[in-house]
């Protein structure tokens, strides 16, 4: 009886906490990652989705490993570009990883 009550109470505590913080909850890390990734959206569309008929490709849902490789290829010049070789040179490898992770986690 005693231990059951304790169990119920801790479950209740957990649920209540979950409810009270579930509202609009997000972590600072996730917020910063999403906002940094939004620097791509000016050309590649909000959440990485370009408008219909765009020659600039959508990047949402792009596999992370592929995107990291392409960004690094722009950066080291092995993939020619009009502007991406100049922009990727402004990003660290960690920033590229973070941006690629964000768009890979987005559904198409």
């Amino acid at each position, binding site marked *: 009886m*005693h231990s059951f*009550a*304790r169990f119920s*109470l*801790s479950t*209740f*505590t957990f649920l*209540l*906490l979950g409810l*009270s*913080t579930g*509202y*609009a*909850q*997000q*972590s*600072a890390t996730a*917020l*910063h990652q*999403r*906002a*940094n990734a*939004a*620097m*791509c*959206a*000016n*050309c*590649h*569309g*909000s959440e990485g989705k*370009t*408008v219909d008929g*765009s*020659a*600039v490709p959508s990047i949402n849902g792009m596999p992370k490993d592929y995107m990291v490789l392409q960004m690094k290829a722009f950066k080291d010049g092995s993939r020619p570009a*009009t*502007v991406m070789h*100049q*922009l990727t*040179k*402004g*990003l660290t490898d960690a*920033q590229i990883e973070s941006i690629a992770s964000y768009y890979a986690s987005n559904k198409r």
Partner: protein
Amino acid sequence: MKRRHFVQASLALGSIGSLATLMGCSTTGRIPEKARVVVVGGGYGGATTAKYVRMLSNYQIDVVLIEPDAAFVSCPMSNLVIGGSKTMADITTPYDNLSSKHGVNVVRDYVSGVDATKKTVTLASGPSIRYDKLVLSPGIELMFNSIEGLKQANASGQILQAWKAGPETANLRKQLVDMPDGGVFAISIPEAPYRCPPGPYERASQVAHYFKQSKPKSKVLILDANQDVTSKGPLFKKFWADNYKGILEYIPQHNVTAVDAKTNTLKFEVQNDVKANVLNVLPAMRAGSIAVQSGLANANGRWCGVNYQTFESTQAKDVHVIGDSIMPAPAMPKSGHMANSHGKVTAAAIVAQLSDLAINPEPFLTNTCYSFVNDKYVVHVASVHQYDSKDKTYKTVPGSGGLSAAPSELEAIYAWNWAQNIWADTLR
């Protein structure tokens, strides 16, 4: 036994309360109920901020966007309307989606006053709106009084600026269409900083292209207060030499001090007067008038100082200023793309502040700026600006950014797609 359970339960609830409070204040990102952000100005900066505060808060923060115009008319690409290859409809986007898709409350009005102590803005129509966070993105104000006679010449519709896209864009196009072949179009440029560094040179290129096609005896004069072309100089000058020889003339170090609307004449500090059929006189610029009136333009009385990590004014707490109105960090252009980037950093900072989350310690900004040198060829300049927490400013990343190697048709396709995508990113 029952009593003991009750006590335990109370303690547990008490700890829930304090823990929730603690988490709310430090780590959870819980947003207080009815937090409200008011954004003034629906251009690239303001509209982006409004949309991204909604998105980044998972639609938990209320956003009011105050904008006097019925629709967004883009300054980037507006030179193509002046050159005749695009129409006003091509560069116009309604504000509907900000409301219907993102739940932004769009109020069509001007702001007549800001009370940073009471945290309210007053609308020109009378009512006041309370805010938790205020974002001013009012663009630029043209300093008509810096050039004698210009205010009256603009009011009469004779000498236009068209430096905020809208009716003047269409009217300047009409002046060029009405001009007889053999006439002269003269554009004057103020000393930097001004809105859109390459804009005047792109405009001159567009008019030269139009003349070359339709009025081949006509001339374009660029009268620049600066020492040299302020952006993409070698690219513009080579294209002019190769394509507009005998049509376009570039004249540096000419600072306009007065206009005579009766004779359509420009007067300069030192040099002889210049007459033209169509004058496009760009005076010096400063932060949009609401920012100046509110006492936020604390850099030379022209631009607004901000904390670059959050874009919060250095003058007033909980008031953020973005876009062309700010005192820029080194090598930061006053551009639509940059204002959109400011908007995202600001939206994230506001969501963090209202959620008691840590503010991004190292935000960065991108800028890509395309210029059409005729109707089919484009050049760009790009840059990446990383926030430096030690020096509290943005610095361009060494080795990053740069210019087009040469004008190209491929970049013209990307430029028009850039416009479509940034309009959607800002407004849809």
